[in-house]
């Protein structure tokens, strides 16, 4: 591992300025749980590390309709926040599934998103909760839907000098339920083979008003299964509808074969996991158990 220079700016503007001056050689570091691993593998060789640790970006603010997570909020902070667990159970579940406790204590939501792995656990629930990301540079600040943030494999919409400042998650309203499922090769400390987050909002007659399905590890980025989502709108909740929608989610996914799994297996698992994730939502909404075996 090469030994880069190191700075710990006290303001975001300062951090952004240093980053902007050296777009190829400077890297931001927060929890370091991805970056240091990449440095060790020689995949990334920064000249200078810009540590965000002194920036006041580590709070969870709960407002009436919106929760604002500073980009340095850790997975552990999300898990331990009663509010987050109650309002965003799929996000809490995803955070709990990241690595091990030590990873979660240091890894940040902002870092998870900026790393832009297609397997990013927190990205999937954040997508189904219609999250927006606030990114800032020394000069300006802009907000974009998280759905627009992932551009390609490990590439984000961040422009040179921009830093994720805040993650804004609207408080879900109405009859809504969400779930998260991660399939891995062992029961802990693992990277997803395929993962799914889902959220359903229904009207008074339990017809689907809004459907959100996000898939991980089946495309170059975390993705939404848009065609499947559209299919669900207006439908009643049933095992049959869920099965049909789950099969549809495969379209639009492009899983690869790698050391963890084959593309064929991943393709099969998409439908299985989506079905289960939707069934969990349905169970929560109807308070009846669903035999998700079919």
């Amino acid at each position, binding site marked *: 591992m090469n030994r880069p220079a190191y700075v710990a700016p006290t303001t975001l503007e300062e951090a952004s300025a240093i980053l902007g001056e050296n777009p190829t050689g400077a890297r931001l570091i927060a929890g370091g749980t991805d970056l240091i691993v990449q440095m060790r593998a020689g995949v990334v060789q920064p000249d200078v590390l810009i540590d965000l640790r002194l920036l006041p970006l580590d709070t969870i603010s709960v407002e009436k309709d919106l929760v604002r997570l500073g980009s340095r909020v850790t997975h552990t902070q999300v898990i331990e926040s009663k509010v987050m667990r109650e309002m965003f159970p799929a996000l809490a579940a995803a955070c709990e599934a990241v690595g091990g*406790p030590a990873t979660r204590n*240091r890894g940040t939501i902002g870092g998870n998103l900026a790393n832009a792995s297609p397997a990013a656990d927190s990205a999937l629930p954040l997508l189904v909760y219609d999250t927006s990301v606030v990114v800032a540079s020394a000069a300006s600040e802009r907000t974009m839907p998280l759905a627009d943030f992932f551009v390609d494999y490990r590439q984000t919409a961040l422009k040179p000098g921009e830093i994720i400042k805040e993650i804004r998650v609207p408080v879900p309203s109405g009859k809504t339920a969400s779930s998260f499922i991660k399939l891995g090769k062992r029961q802990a400390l693992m990277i997803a083979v395929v993962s799914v987050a889902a959220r359903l909002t229904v009207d008074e007659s339990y017809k689907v008003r809004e459907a959100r399905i996000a898939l991980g590890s089946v495309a170059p980025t975390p993705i939404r299964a848009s065609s499947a989502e559209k299919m669900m709108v207006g439908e009643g909740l049933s095992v049959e509808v869920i099965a049909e929608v789950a099969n549809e989610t495969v379209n639009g996914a492009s899983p690869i074969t790698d050391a963890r799994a084959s593309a064929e297996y991943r393709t099969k698992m998409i439908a299985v996991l989506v079905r289960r994730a939707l069934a969990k939502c349905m169970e929560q909404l109807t308070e009846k158990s669903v035999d998700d075996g079919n």
Partner: protein
Amino acid sequence: MTETELRFTVNGTPRLIAVEPGKTLLAVLREDLGLTSVKEGCGQGDCGSCIVVMDGLAVNSCLVLAAQADGSEVVTLEGLAVNGQLHPLQHHFAEEWAFQCGYCTPGMIMSCYALLMHNPKPEAQDVEQAIEGNLCRCTDYHNIIKAVLAAADEVNARVAE
């Protein structure tokens, strides 16, 4: 390579050392401070052998840069015994054969130490979660869980007295 000042507390003792900021906390603890209980098993946060408690949280010291530890409080296994008296975790790990080769043990105990700081009355499930990032190749973890539960009982009994 310009060195930076690292000012932090280790096992209750304030320390001020000059380090390359990019050196890992693992390397600083082992090499600069001689705290060799902190082990390197993989160097990339996949085994838990290097876990120490930093500001009350279990962290993989191989994934913390020295400069990031500035101003923090770090506890390693060497800091658990008080005046030669073993912490209940240490005592029960020995009693319950919660280790065989012992290499994963320091990181394992520190994960459990962090657990007890936050949850003084853990159940087996809680211990499992606390150590799910600690690999052990010699045991099947059962004795570790037993040891932690016994240690928690002892700590609570002491507190109750």
